[in-house]
């Protein structure tokens, strides 16, 4: 289903450029608002393009992905909710890479940070829609820097002697290259 829509988008731009001389083609991708207008027995459903204010130019326009363009490569964490919220849907899921334009490693890092932020409770309004007014139970425990999902983690019944203890994983290895403002080494296993 992806291939036909891509072809239609590309062909539409070519044809509109050929036929309309001097008429600028509308942008193929933009945020649109669905407007339904009923006049008599004619109903018009239109997707009006929302014109955004011009964004300030990024500090590094020659970057390939938004993170490189804004020089944020190793500088964000699960705490930077304002940045991470730009890559999530309203129900909390990640947006696809072909839409946001992120490179693969940054997309994975952002996905990991978004998961950790969800488990820390930093996105209280980005919850999936629940059926039939089923009331979700409030999480009673606070957590942060969780690598695995809450339901998948099993208790470590025998941790072992001091020389071969089973560690508790904290954080994520994808984020080990983040810049540190302290001299302490980053500990991924407690």
């Amino acid at each position, binding site marked *: 289903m992806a291939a036909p829509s891509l072809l239609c988008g590309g062909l539409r731009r070519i044809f509109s450029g050929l036929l309309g001389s001097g008429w600028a083609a509308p942008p193929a*991708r*933009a*945020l649109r608002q669905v407007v339904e207008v009923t006049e008599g027995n004619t109903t018009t459903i239109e997707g009006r393009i929302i014109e*955004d204010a011009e*964004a*300030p130019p*990024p500090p590094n326009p020659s970057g390939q992905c*938004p*993170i490189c*363009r*804004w020089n*944020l490569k190793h500088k964000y964490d*699960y*705490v930077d*909710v*304002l*940045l991470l*919220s*730009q890559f999530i849907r309203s129900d909390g899921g990640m947006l696809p890479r072909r*839409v*946001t*334009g*992120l490179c693969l490693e940054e997309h994975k890092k952002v996905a990991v940070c978004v998961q950790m932020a969800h488990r*820390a*409770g*930093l*996105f*209280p*309004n*980005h919850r999936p829609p629940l059926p039939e007014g089923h009331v979700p139970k409030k999480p*009673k*425990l*606070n*957590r*942060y*820097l*969780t*690598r*695995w999902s*809450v339901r998948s*983690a*099993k*208790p*470590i*019944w025998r*941790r072992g002697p001091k020389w071969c203890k089973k560690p*508790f*994983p*904290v*954080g994520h290895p994808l984020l080990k290259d983040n810049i540190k403002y302290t001299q302490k080494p980053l500990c991924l296993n*407690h």
Partner: protein
Amino acid sequence: MQPPGKIAAATVIRLEGRHKPIYHALNDCGDHVVIINTRHIAFSGNKWEQKVYSSHTGYPGGFKQVTATQLHLKDPTAIVKLAVYRMLPKNLQRRTLMQRLHLFPEDVIPEDIEKNLLQEIPQPRAVPKRLDEYTPEEIAAFPKVWTP
């Protein structure tokens, strides 16, 4: 929203009296420490599910193992109490220092303790802001990194 290990490290320093220049092991110069909101501690990683607190009653078949979640729901002060107990030096002073530690699961403190509080120990972890705690001006001031 503080990690119990870091809270315990700061309290052990105060209980022993190491924060005072007149410290000596025989001086008995430690302070009383009051910890509130122990119900709201936060573990990093998946320790709520993975950390196991074990104990033995002494009787055969009396080996009990409880995860941190179960222990916390049963007794909200137990995790911080065990963390402080295990961080104190393993000598006879440990029990007396534990008597000088006062733990409360919520904000509610008895009046006679509250009127004797002098100093507040700074919080070890900077609690992050949730998305709905940011003002709309801050959200608008943050630039859009990509356009749809």
